[in-house]
């Protein structure tokens, strides 16, 4: 993201309420994470101390400071999904992608596969609890997820069984 693109975002927020989080959310959405240089730029443009921006980015789970892979998989760990077996779905996902998912209690959890194809994160509920367990890939929701139907979902995004 260059200085120009950031100005365009900032221009959309002409009132103080919701401004900082709104700007950061748009950066997060466009880049998939909050790059350090963008944070520095933002601090200069707004005259807000870098430490303050940094504390926001680390406090709110929506933001990430790490670059993410090509596809973003978010597994819901909300209550409805939990009682319907979300943990099994997550650990099966970890196995398929060859990543460690043991620390997924933390809202800031995020792991990226070595080939940089997938990043796995968790959510606290998409509000689609009726079709629990739920996961989202690149913003599209998939309901009634099971360890068995995961491979078919992953295959839509170029994953193949033998690769891992």
């Amino acid at each position, binding site marked *: 993201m260059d200085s120009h693109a950031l100005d365009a975002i900032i221009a959309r927020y002409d009132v103080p309420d919701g401004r900082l989080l709104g700007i950061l959310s748009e950066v997060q959405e466009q880049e998939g994470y909050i790059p350090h240089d963008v944070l520095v730029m933002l601090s200069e443009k707004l005259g807000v101390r870098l430490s303050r921006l940094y504390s926001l980015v680390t406090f709110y789970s929506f933001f990430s400071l790490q670059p993410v892979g090509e596809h973003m998989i978010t597994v819901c760990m909300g*209550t409805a999904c939990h009682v319907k077996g979300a943990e099994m779905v997550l650990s099966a996902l970890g196995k398929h992608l060859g990543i460690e998912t043991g620390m997924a209690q933390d809202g800031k959890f995020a792991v990226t596969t070595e080939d940089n194809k997938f990043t796995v994160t968790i959510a606290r509920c998409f509000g689609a*609890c009726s079709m629990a367990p739920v996961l989202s890939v690149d913003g599209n929701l998939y309901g009634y997820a099971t360890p068995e139907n995961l491979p078919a979902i992953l295959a839509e995004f170029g994953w193949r069984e033998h690769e891992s």
Partner: protein
Amino acid sequence: MRVEAEADLKALQATGLKKLKPDKPRIAVGLATCGAAVGGRKVYDRLREAIAREGAEIDLVQTGCIGYCREEPLVNITLPGKSLVILRKVTEADADAIVRAVLNGKVPEDKALCRVPAWDHVTGFVMEYGKGFDAIPLYQDVPFFAPQRKVILRNAGFIDPEDIGEYFAVGGYAAAWKALHGMEPEAIIAEVEKSGLRGRGGAGFPTGLKWRITRDAPGGAEKYLVCNADEGDPGAYMNRNEMESDPHMLIEGMIIGAFAMGLRHGLIYIRSEYPLAIERLGRAIGQAREYGILGENIMGTGLSFDIRIARGAGAFVCGESTALVASIEGRTGRPHPRPPRLTDPEGGLFGKPTDLNNVETWCNVPAIVANGSGWYAGIGAKGNTGTKVFSLVGKVDRVGLVEVSLGTPIRTIVFDAGNGGANGKKVKAVQTGGPSGGCIPLRLFDMPVDYESLNKAGSIMGSGGIVVMDEDTDMVDIARYFTGFATGESCGKCVPCREGLKHTLLLINRIQAGKASKKDLATLQEVCETIAATSLCGLGQTAPNPVLTTLAYFREEYEAKVRP
């Protein structure tokens, strides 16, 4: 066009009705987040193709969700003069057959869930669809709907939420007109007080009283009115559906509140996990401005009020009032001790007195103004008036959104509407109120769902999540789950919550690993009671509830895992 006379509103209603009940067939696909995700979007696309291919004179629109999530995707068909028919579990493959049937003046009856000859939109308009399709069950005879009473979800699943015209059609903004042109602010507050409406965000604080306190607080019109759309309880999604299916009812409620409290700045604080709700609210606000219903000189009254949207960024604690304000101001969402409350001078947003109410609280307001406080107070139980939308999820057969009068027994919700356990399993408990709530065992299911009864049982109403647990659910695991959640979401400011929850989690993990003794159960109890008594904000004060209730009602499950 700006709404400046009552005749304008009537004209818009008439125009809207032509869309809602056209003189040609209308097919409406339920496209809230859940309907779209289970295939509704594809159904919509196939229907559009089929209609184009046949060159058929059929209106195709989207609606929100009527709440019967298990049967989604849902499709409504309206043939001129006939009952509206709701089709269930519609797939792409059904599209051609639906269009063909409609062209022949029929509906695919094998797909029919129910028929609706007339629908009461509550705010003063009853839609008469017509007769016919007698072989299809009536809406009120469908077991899932039978115990329900729709006041809040009055339009959900019937109107297109992206078209203000359809909201006008069902009597939308008539309550705001009545309030702004025909009532004194004081009279509105008195009505809300007399209705007995209590906050639907969890604590049940009397709404009218909160409005009065805000109105009387210093600061003139520069005070704030905020809608709490953070819906942080993981497992609750009624606020999402209310905003996605009927965004204008929320806006109308906020306008009435703004007039009653005499203020001009409104904000909706909404969680970023709800992109469709954000989009639809944004669109609805834009439409309302176009019609002169938001902005300057609202409905020709000289009154100004506007609403902006502020997005959350994934922090459960930001649903708490003081943290929410901090978040809107662009700070980390850490609560501070109250007082000062938001309504106090200097206590609210940017140091101005602020009224904060939940989405559903606002949605009740137009219905109260339209029908009067007496009507509203007649619904539900004494001290617990009105209806509440519950999201009935987990291991229950019929998942979905269930709106019932307050005071309805849990049993009615779980067994009559929900049909008991999924896959024939036995229901063991429900968890209400999310991470701040507790588990209620089957033997207490005759308990009425109201604020006081739930509190007495060690749980809370919360925002209305009801997660059903069955015989396979490990209640200690549930306690561990919620403790893990609260530990992760604790803002870290006060010691009891930050450290106490961590120790609670360690203790439960030891129990789960078979390494604990009976003495540890006593310690667990004590730690939890201390956290509840000494935490700074509601998060810590209520976070031990899942542990304390499972310890009380399912002690045997803990004891089976510990050494004597």
